[in-house]
């Protein structure tokens, strides 16, 4: 009997050992097999080694002589990063190249690049798509299909129009501390939240507005700008340096460029659409009889500058005598950060005057932008139609198809309320003696 018990125990132990061995084999196979099968090095198809890739950081598309011209900024990932210099275009090892491809379609042009470029073009890291002005005027929708259909290009890359030039003129300008154009432009567009004078619209956002019956998209703009260089080294060769300026916005209608808003108008635009997160406004505050007590001791300047901290916009639609009326109520909270005028900012009455002056300036900006949209472009790029649709859905059904003809005729009033919430580190400006 005891022998039987030992026998069973031995068998049980053997079974446990065997199952443990099987488990170890399964785990080992589980780790080994995927490392062989899934490793890109071993695959014959679909492998993507970093040294085989031409990592694209910016894409430019032009339309020249009935051909699509694609210009890429390709980064050499294996070049040394250590010798990055702000103005060096070529280091010992080439960091960036700018191949161009020509074809009847975007894909064909891209494929043609690989006829002479040894690296496989890889678009997933591109954050910027620059559209040449001529191409934008021609209309882009038909040739943009590739960027929506293909898996490689990201739908969150910013789409921008090259104002007054070709996309190929933009690609290659590197004024941003040695960064490639794509990253330099991308970071500059991300300053949108700080300046409010530009707009960063991704491909996906662009198409969201494009499909709207009542709305036309406004996309970012980039233009070449010559600046006088302050760099001592450069001064000997060339006194100017080319940078990229992103202020303004390009207005598209059915994918065709119809015009531009400048930087100030974009402030108004962003305020109208309720997307102004930050920015700076300079304005004159009219104050009469301010030097009654002979307190001004320095030059009395003209302007006051306010940093926008927060804004909110409400757009109310009403129907007056059968006509659509738009009321824009905007609220703005700001911080005083530069006062050139001799203003006593710890006097609540003066603060109220500054607030009023700021509100008036913003109202002017909004009105100017709206007027340009109505009179010059005759196009609703402000999503006003969307507001009508949301607030008067029954009326909208009747006017939806005619909206772009109705929009120029709508009346509007703008009310801005400014609240100054910070006055900075000093109270009286230096040109005013404290009582």
């Amino acid at each position, binding site marked *: 009997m005891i022998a039987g018990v030992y026998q069973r125990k031995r068998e049980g132990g053997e079974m446990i050992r065997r199952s443990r061995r099987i488990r170890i084999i399964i785990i080992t196979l589980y780790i080994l097999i995927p490392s062989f099968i899934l490793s890109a090095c071993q*695959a014959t*198809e*679909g492998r993507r080694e970093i040294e085989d890739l031409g990592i694209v950081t910016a894409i430019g598309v032009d339309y020249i002589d009935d051909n699509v011209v694609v210009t890429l900024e390709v980064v050499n990932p294996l070049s040394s990063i250590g010798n990055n210099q702000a103005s060096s275009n070529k280091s010992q090892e080439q960091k960036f190249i700018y191949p161009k491809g020509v074809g009847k379609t975007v894909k064909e042009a891209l494929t043609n690049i690989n006829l002479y470029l040894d690296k496989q073009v890889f678009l997933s890291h591109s954050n910027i798509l620059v559209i040449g002005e001529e191409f934008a005027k021609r209309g882009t929708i038909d040739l943009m299909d590739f960027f*929506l259909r293909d*898996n490689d290009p*990201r*739908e*969150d890359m910013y789409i921008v129009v090259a104002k007054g030039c070709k996309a190929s003129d933009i690609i290659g300008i590197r004024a941003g501390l040695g960064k490639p154009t794509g990253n330099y432009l991308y970071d500059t567009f991300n300053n949108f939240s700080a300046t409010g004078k530009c707009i960063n619209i*991704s491909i*996906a956002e662009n*198409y*969201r*507005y494009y*499909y*709207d019956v009542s709305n036309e998209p406004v996309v970012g703009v980039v233009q070449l700008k010559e600046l006088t260089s302050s760099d001592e080294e450069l001064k000997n060769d060339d006194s100017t340096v080319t940078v990229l300026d992103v202020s303004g916005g390009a207005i598209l209608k059915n994918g065709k460029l119809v015009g531009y808003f400048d930087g100030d108008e974009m402030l108004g635009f962003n305020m109208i659409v309720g997307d102004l997160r930050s920015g700076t406004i300079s304005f004159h505050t009219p104050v009469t009889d301010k030097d009654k007590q002979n307190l001004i001791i320095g030059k009395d300047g003209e302007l006051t500058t306010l940093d926008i901290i927060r804004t909110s916009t409400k757009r109310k639609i009403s129907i007056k005598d059968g006509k659509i009326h738009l009321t824009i109520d905007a609220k703005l909270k700001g911080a005083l950060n530069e006062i050139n005028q001799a203003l006593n900012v710890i006097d609540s009455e003066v603060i109220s005057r500054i607030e009023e002056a700021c509100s008036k300036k913003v109202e002017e900006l909004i009105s100017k932008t709206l007027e340009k949209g109505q009179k010059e472009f005759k196009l609703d790029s402000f999503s006003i139609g*969307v507001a009508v*649709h*949301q*607030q008067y*859905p*029954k009326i909208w*059904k009747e006017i939806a198809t005619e909206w772009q003809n109705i929009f120029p005729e709508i009346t509007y009033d703008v009310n801005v309320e400014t609240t100054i919430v910070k006055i900075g580190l000093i109270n009286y400006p230096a040109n005013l003696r404290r009582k």
Partner: protein
Amino acid sequence: MKEQVTSRQMMFLLLLNRIATVITVMPIIHMGPANQDIWIMMILSVFYCFLYNLPTLYLSIKFSDLTIIQYMEKIFGKIIGKALGILYGLYFIRIAIIYYFAEIQMIRTIFMDELHPLIIIVVLMLVSVYVATRGLEVSVRTVEFFAPIVIASLILFIVLGFNNIDLTVLLPIIADSTFTSLNLGAMEASLIFTDANLLSMSFPNLTNKKDVFKIVAKSKIYSQAIIILMVVASQVSLGIEQARHLNFPFLKYVRLVKTYSIFERMEAVFLTIWLIIVMTRAVSYLYISSKAFMEVYNQNNMDPFIYIIGIILTLVIFYISYINPKFELLFNRDIQGYYYYITFNLIIPLIAILIYLIRRKDFRKLGKIKNKKI
């Protein structure tokens, strides 16, 4: 020994199946008014889902120890019953084909665009066949483990895309839709969810059959809530019309996630979650179609049927995805599928109920119904 499935496991299995129906192609955004009111349509569709499931649910309760294949044979007799069993088996295979096809399409379009489809299909099928041969109990235990992770991940994806969300897209509410269009859409949307088949094939394995209404209610309500969140997130971030132009709207939403410069390019994470969801569904249908044929042929071993159906699926899926692609099956409304759904989930069960009610006394007399009172 009969495999046992707990109420919680069954609830998660049905829930993942319902989410899998929508997560890839999201056909519901084209239904009914096809506008910003889809979420209302989806709330209404919960009612229609219940309604459509009632006939099979009623029969499952009456024949609680039998699957739909087995009780059809009891009700209609041997010849018609066997024929119906084969038809049900083929219907389940059709559903499995469409889901594998959707998987292949998405994998080939987004994740492994250069890999030969045959490799993807064979790998997927080997995994599916292996899982199916392990039996229902192992599958549902896996589902029970993964479902909370999957649900939490989906909610996380939706939350992380908050900066792309513009809820005003959902305005005006109901103004652009009619009551009729919302209801017709809800009815159509209910036809794409085939979880009732899974329940009717696994009903005998339920440990607590009294919980069946709770299982159905919970799985439908929870899944519908997650589906509504996915649909709304896709619509409000991409816009109504752009979402309709996309083959994989929720994937696009995930690709747009860019939060705090940390959470971005999350497709790889999404792929893992998505694979768990869609594989659950595909494997379930491979399993129940094999089970249907096993019962038709009165066999005890399901493995040969799983292997045969696995091979058939591999060949058919390779054919429709590579040799003669049938995109309309995925990216267009599957009208043919609706006819099948109505036939197999409404018409045949309703006729079966009618026959059952007429012959109820016979069944009682013959003692053919076990556990008639649940």
